[in-house]
């Protein structure tokens, strides 16, 4: 799975360079997030502007990352959601759980 990591002041940006986040790659995505958290990177910004499609397992993995980050007094925020991907968060009401910013710039401004 193609992920790009960038460490910035107080946070780690995780860019998902895949068109789909689904049952095929979400287990690996979960592992990568867990490793980050274990290594003390508890503030994660997920940039997903390349992701065209998210299924229930992708949503589940993002939710578990969010919960794990919170339990470590950190945070996980989402940026760059394509409109159809955003609809999946709205349909499941997960948009009320996550902090979602249109762009990385806005996320960084608010961080």
């Amino acid at each position, binding site marked *: 799975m193609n992920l790009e990591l960038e460490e910035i002041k107080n946070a780690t940006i995780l860019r998902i360079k895949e068109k789909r986040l689904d049952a095929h790659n979400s287990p690996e995505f979960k592992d990568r997030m867990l490793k980050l958290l274990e290594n003390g990177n508890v503030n994660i910004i997920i940039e997903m502007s390349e992701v065209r*499609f998210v299924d229930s397992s992708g949503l*589940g993995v993002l939710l578990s990352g969010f919960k794990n980050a919170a339990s470590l007094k950190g945070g996980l925020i989402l940026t760059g959601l394509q409109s159809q991907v955003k609809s*999946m968060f709205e349909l499941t009401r997960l948009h009320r759980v996550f902090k979602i910013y249109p762009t990385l710039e806005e996320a960084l401004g608010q961080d």
Partner: protein
Amino acid sequence: MTGSNYQSRVKVDVVIPTNTRFLGLVGSIGEDVAREIDRYSGDREVLGYNLNLVLTEAMANVIAHGSNHRRNGGIKISIHVQENELLIRVKDKGKGFDLKSVPPPDLDNPTGGGLGLFFIKTLMDNVQYHQAKSGNVLEMRKQLR
């Protein structure tokens, strides 16, 4: 069945190995079919996403819950564009389950589980699961108008 109705029917049958690697392929085929449905008044890109999603969820469930590893002939999917309705069938050879007794997810206390059938039931107009010794089938229908 008149000539003109007949003219607009499309059927796609796919067999893939029981492996998540092929979810995207069948999802893309679902999107391709959605783009070609002429008599759909809604947004075709949204319909494409939704077919991609219900196909992905149904196949992922077969891989996770509905596989018989002794007798593994792959996953059979069929997408049938009929006159007024789109019918998707996904077969499995597992022990089956009772669709009606699966509780809806509690969206106010999300756990991340149980969203697959929620999407399928929410995005399609009619969903049935038929069990048989010869194999089970999840049938998902969407009215085209």
